[in-house]
Each structure stands twice: as structure tokens, then as C-alpha cells.
């Protein structure tokens, strides 16, 4: 009963003290600015995955992709609001032309108006097969596919041009003025060959056609310039089985795309047949997908590094908040704890222990900060935990000195003497009488240790000693410094890659500095006395 009452009293006392402190703190304009900024960053750090659901380091397209997930965006895209705010209406965006792996939209393939089938006559038969399909990693999928069957009796003559062609054509409207930056597509083939030897060669080509041009029968002769054949692969010697293909092409987009309008993707499948003898082959075409990558993406554009999957800079910026908080707070908390411990022990125990600890601290303080960081991180390895560990190791000395000097003056005060006289042990005196009196310094030091740690991490990353597996602001800056664009164009064109992380680092560091400065004004006994 008694203990409950005292505890209530203590809580009430602490609450009163906190309210008193808060009333003072509220008066400091700098302190309030600092707290507001920190609060803002804290919200961003907590809700980063909600604010941007993308992967910060290796973003890929979400969805059903059989072979390999395509990259999320082109490299060095500009922010998407360039279109609306800056009025650059021609800029293109990512465009999923079609994503058809089940052909579920209709019960019969030929009734689907999206797909146009053009074949060159002969005995080729194209239809929708709802109960067949090509494989994926988990096994066979039989959720529907396009089935091309070619049969010829031995008595019939082979086609005059040596091949039968089937064109699967998908028309689409390109809504942007600029051409796409690159193409990505995927298809799966399953070939069931029932002909006796020799093998029937098969080829598949992918092409894009401008819509207002003549029809594809001419296209197949390959003489028209308005059709750009993106790729063509002869898949020879396929007797049976599956082929999955994912292809990415860039550099020819401007030849095909002249602006907004009608375009068409075409899968051209050629079955070569010039010999005598019966032919019987079935080709299942499945999982056709095509993406056109635009030159805008996200709220802050994209980076050029790493090569295969450029990063969404906005997502990295959000996640960087977490990393910076982690580095700053962990370093601050642990280095302050060590400094507090060393300072208390050195100041209270004195003698040889004091001398030894303080000489050690002096020695560490003489060692130049950044060079020591460089050496230690090189020797230990570039993981974020090593960096934090080294920052903690190098961050406690100054604080331990101020704690020690405080303790030195405290231990001579009468209330310590009376505590000693009534038989209190060292641990009790330090915990109950000295610690509460140096705690003001702890708060100040906590706030002032954070910015140094954040900036040190960024500097290390800039020098190439950062952790490249952690989406930190330092990594964003380091990535930029590695590109040629950094050297050639400076910040101008790609400011969205460099300016936001720099401002974020500066803002967060500044917020903690402002907070520390205000705490110092209120709590520091030395400064308080002067008023």
C-alpha cells in the first residue's frame, strides 16, 4: 500500500517536472522546429512501406510473370509530375500493352477481338484451347492458350515460299507524344511435333507496326520500313517441349514511334516446310506479355544504378529515413551509455582507474575521426553493423569527460557525504544520487550525437565504404557519384537524384542539432547559472 503511494507520488513528481521542462522547451523556437522535423521524419520512417509499396533496392514489376519479373522502370526517368506541373505533356509513362496468359476473356479464342490472327492460308489452324497451356516453374498450367496446328499430308505440295506463317496481332493505342524508352516482352511456346524426322524448324519474331500502314501480309516479306522487327529467333530443332523467352530491347524505339496513335504488336510464327512427306505439328503459344517503358516514373524519378533494375528514388528516400534514424539513434544511445558509464566510474572511483580511462579517452580523441573510420571499416568489412559499431566506439569520449567533471564536483557535495555516512554503497550512491544529477547531460548528448553519426555514415558511403545492401541516403549519393552523369552534367538535369537525399540528411541532422541546442540552453547547469 505504502509503496503504491510512493510510486504514485514519484510519477506525479516526474510528470510535474516534465511539464515544467516542456513549458520551457516550448518557448524555444529552434527546439520546436527541431521536434516538428523529427516527428515528420519519424512518421515517414514508420509508414515508409505504406507510402511506397515498392522494393527500395531491387524493384520489380508486381504480377504474374512466368519466366522473370521485368524491371520496374527505365533508368534515369524524370519525376512523373513533370507532365502535369511542368507541362511536359509529351513525356511517356510505363505502358502495359497486354498481359494475356490465360486468354480467359472469352470462351473461344477467335471470338476475342483483341487478338487478330492472320495466317497465310494453307492447312494451318489457329484456335483457342481452354484446357491446354505451357508450363511454369510449378508445373503445367492448363488454363488456356493459343493453339496453332499445321498438318499436311504427304500427297500435298509444301507451301511455295517454304513456310507457313501465323501472325498474332494485338493493336493498341499509344497515348504519349514521346516514344517509349525500351520494350519488354515475354512468351512461352510449347511445340508438339508428331512428324517423323527431319525436324521442322520454327521461328518466332516480334515486331511493332504503326497502325495506319498496310496490312501484314506484305509485312511478312520484310520489305516495309514502317514495321520494325524487334527480334527474330529461329528456334530450330525443337522436337517437343517448352521454351520461355524474355527479351528487353532499347535503342530503336524512336524509329517506330512517331507520336500518339495506333500501333500493333505482332508475334510472327513461321513453320518452315519445304520437304516432301507428311507434317503434323502443334504449337501452343502462351503467357504473352508486353511492356513499353516510358521516360517518367514515380514522384522523384529513377536512378541509373544498378544496371538491370533501376531504383525508384522516392522509395529509397522514404526508406533512407529509417536507416538514418537507426544509425543516428543506435550510435547516440550506445555511445552515450558507454560515455556515461566511463564518466561515472572515472569520476567517482578516481585514482588509477580514472587516470587509465581518461588517458585512453584522450588517446582516442587524438586519433583523427574520418581516417580511423576508413581504416576500421576497411579492416572489419562494410556492413552497416560494423559502421554503427565503429561510430559508437569513436563517439563516447567527449561525453565521458563532461560526465566525469560533473561527477567530480557532485561527489564533494554534502548530500553525498550524508549518504555515505548513513552507509550507502557505491552503486547505490551512483544510481540514486549522482545519476539523476547528470541526466540532463544525457539528454543533451543524445540529441547532439545523432547528426554526427548520420553525416559520418553518408561520408563513408560517399567514399565507397558504405553498406550497399541497405537503402540509405548515403547510398543514393554514392550511386550518383558513380555515374558519368555526375561528372558531366553535375546536379542540373538529375537534381532529383541528389538534392532530395542531401536535403534530407541536412534536415534530419539540423533537427537534432536544433533540439540539442535548445536542450543545452534549458538543461545545461553551466549555461543555466549564467542567466
Amino acid at each position: 500500500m505504502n509503496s503504491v503511494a510512493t510510486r504514485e507520488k514519484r510519477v506525479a513528481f516526474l510528470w510535474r517536472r516534465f511539464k515544467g521542462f516542456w513549458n520551457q522547451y516550448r518557448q524555444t523556437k529552434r527546439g520546436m522546429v527541431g521536434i516538428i522535423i523529427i516527428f515528420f521524419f519519424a512518421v515517414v520512417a514508420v509508414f515508409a512501406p505504406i507510402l511506397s509499396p515498392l522494393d527500395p533496392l531491387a524493384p520489380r514489376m508486381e504480377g504474374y510473370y512466368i519466366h522473370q519479373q521485368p524491371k520496374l522502370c527505365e533508368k534515369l526517368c524524370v519525376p512523373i509530375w513533370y507532365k502535369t506541373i511542368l507541362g511536359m505533356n509529351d513525356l511517356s509513362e510505363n505502358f502495359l500493352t497486354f498481359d494475356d496468359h490465360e486468354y480467359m476473356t472469352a470462351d473461344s479464342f477467335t471470338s476475342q477481338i483483341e487478338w487478330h490472327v492472320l495466317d497465310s492460308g494453307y492447312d494451318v489452324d489457329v484456335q483457342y484451347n481452354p484446357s491446354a497451356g505451357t508450363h511454369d516453374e510449378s508445373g503445367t498450367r492448363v488454363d488456356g492458350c493459343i493453339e496453332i496446328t499445321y498438318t499436311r499430308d504427304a500427297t500435298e505440295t509444301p507451301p511455295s515460299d517454304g513456310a507457313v506463317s501465323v501472325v498474332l496481332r494485338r493493336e493498341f493505342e499509344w497515348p504519349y507524344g514521346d516514344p517509349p524508352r525500351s520494350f519488354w516482352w515475354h512468351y512461352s511456346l510449347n511445340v508438339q511435333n508428331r512428324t517423323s524426322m527431319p525436324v521442322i524448324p520454327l521461328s518466332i519474331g516480334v515486331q511493332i507496326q504503326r497502325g495506319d500502314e498496310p496490312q501484314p501480309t506484305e509485312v511478312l516479306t520484310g520489305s516495309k520500313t514502317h514495321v520494325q522487327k524487334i527480334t527474330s529467333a529461329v528456334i530450330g530443332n525443337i522436337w517437343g517441349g517448352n521454351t520461355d523467352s524474355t527479351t528487353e530491347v532499347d535503342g530503336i524505339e524512336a524509329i517506330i514511334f512517331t507520336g500518339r496513335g495506333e500501333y500493333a504488336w505482332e508475334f510472327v510464327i513461321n513453320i518452315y516446310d519445304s520437304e516432301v512427306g507428311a507434317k503434323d505439328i502443334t504449337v501452343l503459344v502462351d503467357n504473352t506479355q508486353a511492356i513499353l517503358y516510358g521516360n517518367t516514373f514515380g514522384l522523384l524519378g529513377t536512378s541509373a544504378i544498378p544496371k538491370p533494375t533501376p531504383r525508384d528514388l522516392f522509395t529509397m528516400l522514404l526508406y533512407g529515413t529509417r536507416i538514418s534514424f537507426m544509425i543516428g539513434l543506435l550510435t547516440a544511445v550506445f555511445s552515450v551509455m558507454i560515455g556515461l558509464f566511463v564518466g561515472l566510474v572515472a569520476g567517482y572511483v578516481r585514482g588509477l582507474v580514472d587516470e587509465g580511462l581518461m588517458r585512453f579517452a584522450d588517446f582516442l580523441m587524438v586519433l583523427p575521426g574520418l581516417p580511423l573510420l576508413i581504416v576500421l571499416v576497411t579492416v572489419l568489412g562494410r556492413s552497416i553493423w560494423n559502421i554503427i559499431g565503429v561510430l559508437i566506439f569513436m563517439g563516447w569520449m567527449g561525453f565521458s569527460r563532461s560526465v566525469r567533471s560533473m561527477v567530480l564536483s557532485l561527489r564533494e557535495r554534502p548530500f553525498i557525504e550524508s549518504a555515505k555516512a548513513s552507509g550507502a554503497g557505491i552503486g547505490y550512491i551512483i544510481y540514486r544520487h549522482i545519476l539523476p544529477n547528470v541526466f540532463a547531460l544525457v539528454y543533451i548528448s543524445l540529441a547532439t550525437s545523432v547528426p554526427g553519426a548520420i553525416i559520418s555514415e553518408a561520408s563513408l558511403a560517399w567514399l565507397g565504404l558504405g553498406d550497399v545492401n541497405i537503402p540509405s541516403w548515403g547510398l543514393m549519393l554514392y550511386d550518383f557519384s558513380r555515374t558519368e552523369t555526375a561528372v558531366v552534367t553535375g546536379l542540373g538535369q538529375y537534381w532529383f537524384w541528389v538534392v532530395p537525399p542531401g536535403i534530407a540528411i541536412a534536415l534530419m541532422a539540423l533537427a537534432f542539432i536544433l533540439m540539442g541546442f535548445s536542450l543545452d540552453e534549458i538543461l545545461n547547469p553551466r549555461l543555466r547559472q549564467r542567466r
Partner: protein
Amino acid sequence: MGLKAYIARRIVYMIILIFLVATVNFLLFNLMPGTTLSKYVAQLGGVAMTEERLQQLKESYGLDQPIHVRYLLYIRNMVTWNFGYSYETRNYVQDDILMVLPNTLILMGISELGAMLVGILLGVIAAYKRGSSLDTFLITTSLATYSVPVFWIGWLVLSAFALNLGWFPVGGIVPQSWAFNPPSSMLEYISGRLYMLTLPAFTLFIFLFGGWILLTRATVLETITEDYVTTARAKGLPERTVLFKHVLKNASLPLITSAALTFGFLISGAIITETVFSYGGMGLMIWAAIATTDVPVMQAFFFVIALLVVVANFVADMLYGVIDPRIKYG
């Protein structure tokens, strides 16, 4: 204790410190797993490494010796200023360092001098007008300079003045045209070097001057309330004389100590600034060494810079002893 004994004591202390620094440097690179030789071997890349060849390498680098022998050898090398070959350039590291060190010192000297002049002046003004909006502005600006990474300042400066405006070169220590027609006169040489120095020095200056403002303001505030200042004012001395002769002179002691104590901070800033502007000093050297894990260079780099810091501390102690007549040596 007299001045001489004081100096002698500081010298002994300095030598002990240097010895400790060298020892730490040795331990770091030798006792940690996966350093020196394995890094070197890794750097050779695809070259097949036989047991024999490894043994040869170990012998040629003295790594087959027991650790205490290696330690003594190492200390002897440090004392005789012998840092071995760079893995990358194959030059003697000490020669490389002596070539680039002056560049770094020039950069540091110029920016620190500028930062001190401007910072102390503004700091005195801030203290004199404490509480005013000018004071608030100066404090906030100084705090802001603390919070911005120096390489980022460098980028902004580089983009603005070198790439956009084209007033200054992007990087280097001497103008490119000197490759064809070297400077004819001393004046031309100096002006050319200064031209190349402008942007890095300006960057480092921005990085540094805020600290000086805050420090000066704090120390001046402490002395401005002293009795002798009131006396000086009462005598009718002009405010400027009071501020700079009576206040600042007495407040200058902590400033001098701080100049030495922040020497390591200054070097860190210089290292990073150099890498932004490809300014061929110690910073650019360590940058290249990090990329290739050039252990001898890193080892020497750390040793030389720690040496500089220790010496700077020593000089500060000496200055302190000479300037302040109140100091009790000991």
C-alpha cells in the same frame, strides 16, 4: 615547474602518443583477419596462387616472421619513414605522400584561415548583438553548416560555379593548359594554383566557418560580462576597442586550443572535399586506395594524419603556454 620542463614534458607525451598511434595502426592491419596478404592476393585477381608462390610472397613481405619481430621491423620502418610499396602504383608510399601532402595542407590552411577570420568576426558581432535577429540568423546559419555533408556542399558549389556558370575548372590541382605551356613566372604559377584552389577552398570554408561563429560567440559571451570589460566601457573607450582589444584578446585562448583540437575535423573535411574536386591531395589518394584496398597506402595515410594531429595538439599546447601568462606549467 618552468617553461622548459613543461615543453620537455609535452614532447615526451607527444612521442608516447605517436608510438601508440603507430602500434594501433600495426595491430589493426595485422591482427584482424583477412587483411594484408589476402587482400593483395585477392587484388591480383585470376592469377593462380600456388602454395609455393604464397610462401614466396610471405617471405618478400616479411610475413613469415613471428609477430613481435614484425612489430619491431614495423616500428623501425615508421621511424625511418619507410612505408613500403603501394600495391597499386608500385611507388614508395612515402614519396607519393610527400608529393600530395603539401596540396592538402595548402587547401586546409587557406580555408581554415578564411573560416577563422570570417567566423571570429561574425561571432564577435553575434555576441555583441546577442538576442537580436542578426544573432538568431547567424546561430541558425552556423548550426545549418554543421548539418550538411561537406561533399554535398561541394557538389552544389561544383554544379553552380564550374558546370553551370563555367567560372572555375571542374577539378585538378594545376590548370590543364600547363601541360603544353608551363607557367613562366612565379606570379603566374601562384595565380594558377589559387584559381584551381578556389572552389575546394570555398567548399571547405563553408563547412568550417559556422563552427567558428558558435565558438567565438560562446567564449566572447563568457568574457563580455567580466568586470574589466565594464571598466573599459566606463573609461569611455570606443566599443570596437573594447570588443577586439579587451574581450577578444582574452577570449582567444579557447579559440587557439580549439583550432588544434578540431584539426582532425578539418582534415576529414579536406579529405572529402578533395574527392569532389579531384584535387590531388591526401583525400584523393585515400579514395583511390579504398577502391583498390591498397593496404600500405591506407596504413601510411592513417599514420601520417594521426602524426599531424598529434603535432597540432603539441603546437597548441606550446602556444597556450607562451600566450597565457597565467598558465601553471604542469
